């Protein structure tokens, strides 16, 4: 600060430049961010350690046997079919609600987003409970598509609302028919958003375990779980997990490459006009029927099955009184995980947003990596670590909380990032210039501004943890059940009636963010066309 008092204007200039360009990263933030990066890497490192404990040649044998090829084939054909169908349904439905004169578009938007709030394993349960014969490839494709298409639908609606209609009009005036314009102009503008949705679908398919177990469809997750829980073969489970991680990272990199090449910069800033609606005319009824069928299959079947089994009740097993205890456990574990995850996300995000350099950006990417990591894989890595170096941690509540925190760290980072964007450095600088010390600025300016965003981050992690099944099955402390694991116990027992109340509670919890999200989507498209 002493240079500020220097009378020479040049010195003062140099001071301001140094302040703006190369502010020093606070040590606490560096340490915090680095710790988070290490924490994310920990399960991956121990996955490798575990997998090659009996030597590389043994690992090679595990990876290159026939079984692995079958698993790869099962996983890949599921990913290709289900992602394509999600793309088709998501974009098609988005176009119907956003660009046509369909009646009740706000209601349709909400109804079509809501399936997002039902965990895949509950959807699987819903279908199997009404048709025991349902299993195998086609069943898996159907259930997963119905469960995951909102991940494409949501960004597609936002994308369609965001495309500047002037682009489409110019293309028309340049001699293109409406179909050609849709594919070459409209779809092209939505592509980054839609591809992002497809990535989430692919990652969801790679990570899913419960639904495939219920539908008796062998994918990597199912095989890994079986090897570990039933075969007690940690090395084989970890080796297969590495393949799964590789697939997830490949999807992540692939999407990055596709979108990165066609990154779209918004140009212009003027008021956009609203896109004209296509009059459906005689097609109104068929389109309505189509949307109704989609909503019925994706939302009606699982919700209906839950309602049916809840009302009919368990004829053999009464819904045990433990549901309240389990709910309490779930809430405690999830709240701890949400607090931890949000706290971890803060230094990472501050470092990446305020002090942008190679290190901080790498750490932020690391923090987003768990997006591509199935819960099963993170859990296996942590088990492998704790068995070797921290036995007291093994099957402790703390380990489960850490697993949740790592697993849902990307949600927390995205939430904190959005929150921090609302507190520009400018404001902190103004507060400093008005004589406040950094700590006081943080408490009186930054924190009040980002608090609501932090709340959102907390809520997102909390809800995701409440509905987590796979990692919980592996890591839960003996004798403690969450809603998801108790549901799982009943379901694998075919006690549908006993399982249903648990699933209903899970859906009730996770429907909250899905509903809020869908309301916001409907709101977005409403404000765009007054």
């Amino acid at each position, binding site marked *: 600060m002493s240079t500020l008092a220097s009378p020479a204007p040049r010195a003062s200039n140099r001071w301001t430049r140094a302040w703006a360009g190369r502010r020093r990263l606070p040590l606490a933030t560096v340490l915090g961010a680095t710790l988070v990066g290490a924490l994310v890497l920990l399960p991956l490192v121990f996955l490798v350690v575990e997998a090659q404990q009996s030597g590389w040649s043994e690992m090679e044998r595990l990876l290159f046997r026939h079984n692995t090829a079958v698993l790869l084939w099962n996983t890949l054909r599921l990913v290709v079919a289900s992602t394509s169908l999600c793309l088709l349904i998501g974009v098609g439905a988005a176009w119907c609600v956003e660009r046509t004169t369909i009646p009740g578009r706000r209601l349709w938007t909400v109804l079509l987003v809501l399936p997002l709030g039902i965990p895949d394993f509950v959807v699987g349960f819903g279908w199997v409970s009404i048709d025991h014969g349902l299993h195998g490839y086609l069943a898996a494709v159907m259930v997963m598509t119905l469960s995951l298409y909102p991940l494409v639908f949501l960004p597609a609606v936002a994308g369609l609302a965001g495309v*500047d209609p*002037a*682009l489409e*009009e*110019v*293309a*028309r*005036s*340049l*001699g*293109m*028919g409406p179909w050609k314009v849709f594919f070459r*102009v409209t779809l*092209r*503008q939505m592509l980054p958003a839609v591809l992002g949705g497809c990535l989430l679908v692919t990652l969801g398919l790679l990570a899913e375990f419960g639904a495939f177990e219920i539908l008796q469809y062998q994918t990597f997750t199912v095989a890994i779980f079986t090897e570990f829980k039933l075969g007690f073969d940690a090395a084989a489970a970890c080796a297969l997990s590495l393949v799964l991680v590789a697939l997830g990272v490949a999807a992540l990199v692939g999407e990055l490459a596709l979108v990165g090449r*066609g990154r*779209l*910069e*918004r*140009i*212009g*800033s*003027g008021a956009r006009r609203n896109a*004209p609606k296509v009059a459906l005319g005689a097609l109104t009824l068929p389109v309505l029927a189509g949307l109704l069928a989609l909503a019925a299959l994706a939302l009606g079947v699982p919700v209906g099955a839950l309602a049916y089994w809840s009302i009919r009740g368990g004829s053999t097993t009464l819904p045990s009184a433990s549901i309240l205890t389990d709910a309490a456990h779930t809430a405690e574990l999830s709240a701890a995980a949400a607090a931890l995850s949000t706290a971890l996300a803060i230094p990472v995000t501050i470092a990446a947003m305020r002090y942008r350099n190679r290190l901080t950006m790498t750490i932020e990417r690391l923090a987003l990596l768990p997006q591509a990591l199935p819960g099963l894989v993170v859990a296996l890595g942590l088990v492998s670590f704790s068995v070797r170096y921290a036995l007291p941690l093994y099957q402790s509540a703390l380990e489960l909380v850490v697993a949740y925190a790592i697993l849902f760290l990307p949600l927390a980072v995205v939430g904190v990032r959005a929150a921090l964007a609302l507190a520009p450095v400018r404001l902190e600088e103004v507060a400093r210039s008005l004589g406040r010390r950094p700590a006081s600025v943080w408490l009186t300016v930054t924190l009040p501004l980002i608090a609501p965003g932090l709340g959102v981050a907390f809520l997102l992690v909390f809800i995701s943890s409440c509905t987590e099944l796979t990692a919980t099955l592996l890591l839960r402390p003996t004798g403690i059940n969450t809603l998801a694991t108790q549901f799982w116990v009943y379901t694998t027992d075919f006690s549908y009636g006993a399982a249903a109340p648990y699933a209903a509670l899970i859906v009730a919890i996770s429907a909250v963010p899905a509903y809020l999200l869908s309301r916001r989507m409907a709101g977005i498209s409403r404000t765009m066309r007054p």
Partner: protein
Amino acid sequence: MSQTGALEVADLWKGYSSTEVLRSVDLDVAPGSLSAVLGLSGCGKTTLLRVIAGFERAQRGRVALSGQVLDDGRNYIAPERRGIGYVPQEGALFPHLDVRANVGFGLSRAERRGATVGELLEMVGLSALARRMPHELSGGEQQRAALARALARRPALLLLDEPFSSLDATLRGAVREEVSALLRRQGTTTVLVTHDQEEALSLADSVAVLRDGTIIQQGSPADIYGAPTDARLAGFLGEANLMEAVLENGQARTSLGTLELRGGASRAPSSVQGIVVVRPEQLRVRAGTDGGEGLRGRVEQCRYYGHDALLSIHPEDSPLASPLLARVHGEEALAVGTDVVVTATGTVSAVDGGASR
């Protein structure tokens, strides 16, 4: 019947659920000319453009280009089959394509490989920027690229929707000059929509004034400025003094002296009371209190612009309620409080609705 590029809009109606936006619009645009549709925002000018382009359908009336009916409320030709170029506000370049691909967008694959795109880029002076993405261009460069894209298919008619309004003031003049020079060289019939009267008057061969969904006047810029149909339009087009006058034998007797009525029109046999528009630049101001012809007054305010100055002159013992506005050369600006005598030159025209100044 009509030449290539002649646009005829006749008795065009267009409304939305509750409001009529266009009410019996008539507009004729001569082939190869540049016409401006001038109006305040919300007057329906963008809707008119969009109906001509085919993005909206007419309810009633007729839109024809080169003698071919495009839309008569029943039959309608799709925009891609009209051969009408369109440059929206801010250009709307495709953000995922570079300048070259944007300009070639409407061309066939073979045409794109030919020399056409290069020539177009040359024409708008963007050859060096062919590989740039739209967001790497300045506002003026974006406009020129959008123009080249619209001209690539040699449209019979070009529509420009407020093409210069998004540019900042310093850039606007230059881009406007470049674009109008280019359009004149091309000889493409052009309709420009704008709310900027200076832009309309300086660029267009013909100006049509749209108000509340109807064309209230169409004519050459000089006709529109010199003989606006009503006082409101006179004020919209520029500063105007509304003077009470006795109209008689093609002349108007005002307190400034006797002036010729424009075109000698309204040669009433007997004298009638009326209102005439006298533009500030028609007034001659001389300092002093001499007894010569003219209206005596005192300078109340002087707005100095450099190249010229606008004087507000309060008339002495005159029935005029509001001060007279006079435009004088910059170096002839007079100090506030100076006594002056004001006379007028040139022709004037009578307007309706003098009550609302």
